[in-house]
């Protein structure tokens, strides 16, 4: 029961945060010079005053700011995020069309990163100071210091330009119109390079964090007690050290939610991956405010959800943490 009302309070908090997100970004975007009317007129190749005034009226850009804000808020409450100027499509529709791509890529990257990161970190922590440990630390430092977009382009250079094993760009082969299984295979192939770019970056973090957490946990007294009980090193490592080392890892995963859900703008841009990242980049370029606001809102909701899940996982992993 306590957990239920905890979840409710967190949902309410998430709601408040989302409203704050909307308010702040609404004004933030207004401070930019030029507006969507100039964009549409520009695209139409015809930008005289009369036409622009007509556009502004049509999209309500000429009303006073509070009126626009109120109109927008009431629309959002009803789930209507408005229409994207540049794309002539419903914002929600555009976002929901792109969101699965970002989540797919992030899920792939997260699984690879957490899996191998924790495994490598545990390996390194097993014999601190050994060659393996030094190698893992150096590798993770290296990937941690590498700009993601450059890492992506290096992978493209090696695996597409030189070895030509993997397709570098887009989510599917352009113009092939595969269906069913062939299409899945095609998407999988296209996902490898961007996925690995994201994964390598987070793998470095997870390896480092696991190593530190494991060494920290190994130094605790209860590990000495466990050995005093005559348990084998393997049992001590699995049941006592790793079990306690998981706790900081879970809170770290929570922290990353906003980065992942926001879609790594640069990686998606390098690989022309049609996710939220490229959508945000194009929206900024085209001064497409409703789309930009929509992206902020959707990410805020998803991040709150993700944080809630992480907190619940955290309270399961660590009995000491009450759900305050």
């Amino acid at each position: 029961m306590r957990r239920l009302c905890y979840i409710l309070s967190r949902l309410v908090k998430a709601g408040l945060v989302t409203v704050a997100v909307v308010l702040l970004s609404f004004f933030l975007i207004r401070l930019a010079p030029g507006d969507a009317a100039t964009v549409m007129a520009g695209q139409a190749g015809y930008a005289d005053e009369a036409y622009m005034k007509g556009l502004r009226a049509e999209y309500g850009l000429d009303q006073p700011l509070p009126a626009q804000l109120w109109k927008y808020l009431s629309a959002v409450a009803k789930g209507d995020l408005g229409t994207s100027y540049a794309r002539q499509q419903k914002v929600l529709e555009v976002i929901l069309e792109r969101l699965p791509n970002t989540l797919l890529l992030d899920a792939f990257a997260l699984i690879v990163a957490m899996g191998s990161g924790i495994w490598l970190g545990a390996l390194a922590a097993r014999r601190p100071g050994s060659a393996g440990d030094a190698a893992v630390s150096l590798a993770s430092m290296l990937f941690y210091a590498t700009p993601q977009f450059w890492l992506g382009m290096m992978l493209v250079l090696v695996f597409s330009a030189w070895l030509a094993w993997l397709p570098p760009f887009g989510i599917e082969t352009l113009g092939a119109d595969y269906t069913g299984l062939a299409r899945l295979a095609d998407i999988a192939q296209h996902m490898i390079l961007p996925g690995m770019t994201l994964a390598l970056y987070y793998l470095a973090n997870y390896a480092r964090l696991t190593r530190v957490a494991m060494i920290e946990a190994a130094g605790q007294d209860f590990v000495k007690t466990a050995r005093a009980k005559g348990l084998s090193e393997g049992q001590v490592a699995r049941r006592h050290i790793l079990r306690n080392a998981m706790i900081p890892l879970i809170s770290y995963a929570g922290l990353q939610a906003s980065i992942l859900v926001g879609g790594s703008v640069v990686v998606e841009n390098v690989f022309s991956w049609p996710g939220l990242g490229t959508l945000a980049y194009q929206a900024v370029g085209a001064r497409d405010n409703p789309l930009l606001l929509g992206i902020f809102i959707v990410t805020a909701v998803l991040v709150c959800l993700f944080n809630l899940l992480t907190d619940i996982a955290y309270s399961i992993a660590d009995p000491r943490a009450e759900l305050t």
Partner: protein
Amino acid sequence: MSCLRAFFARPQTLAGFCIFSAIAIIALAAPLLFPRGPFVIIGMPLLPPGAPGLAAGSDVLGRDMAAQLAYGARISLLVGIVSTIFSIGIGGALGAVAGYYGGVVDDLLMRVTEFFQIIPSFVLVMVLVAFLQPSLASTVIGIALITWPQVARVVRGEFLALRQREFVAAARMQGLGDGRIIFGEILPNALAPIIVVATMMVGSAILTESALSFLGLGDPNLTSWGSMIGGSRSSMWVAWWTMVLPGLCIMVTVLALNFIGDGLNDALNPRRGR
């Protein structure tokens, strides 16, 4: 001076320190090494490194890559350091006040840092820079605005912990005012983690700046490592060095900074001091 010995204890830190100082020297000496600046056309485009008189080859416009890398270093270091100073300033002050006084200020700060955690930070800085019209100043402001919450969280944590320490109660008993306690008593002890965070943040600021200029949101009048890579998206297919070399410079610089950060962490760590 056990700190210095501790700082250079690990070989990585020494390497990091040397690399970083080398890069800093090159950045400062760029006008001497390449008096005519990075933009001058000195030959045909896309000549490979090692071509006559071109240590790092020529870029897509026939400009000397080595000169661009040297001048690029200035931008990266400048943005990295200045934005970190701003961020430490804002974040440090707010964190200190929130940590020391607690109450409403603390709650407010926590809500704001939470907000910055929710919003994808890179999208936010992209929006900020794009709308303030891309320039060096807007990049620095943008980066500082999205990174100060991290500093605030660290400083708040330090001040919360140190406020409980008994020498603070003793100082209050001795009649020291809040100001003297914050700056005289607590800050010296909180400096160590702040310096370590600052070093790491210079590294991440450089990464963010390079990402922004890669996306074309950097200052068009300046050449930075990120914009060089951005410009090489097509030429990399025919001239790998236009993309590889600037990226290497970024990685090496940030790696050096992280090594120094780790070294500082060991040297200034109070546990070692006891």
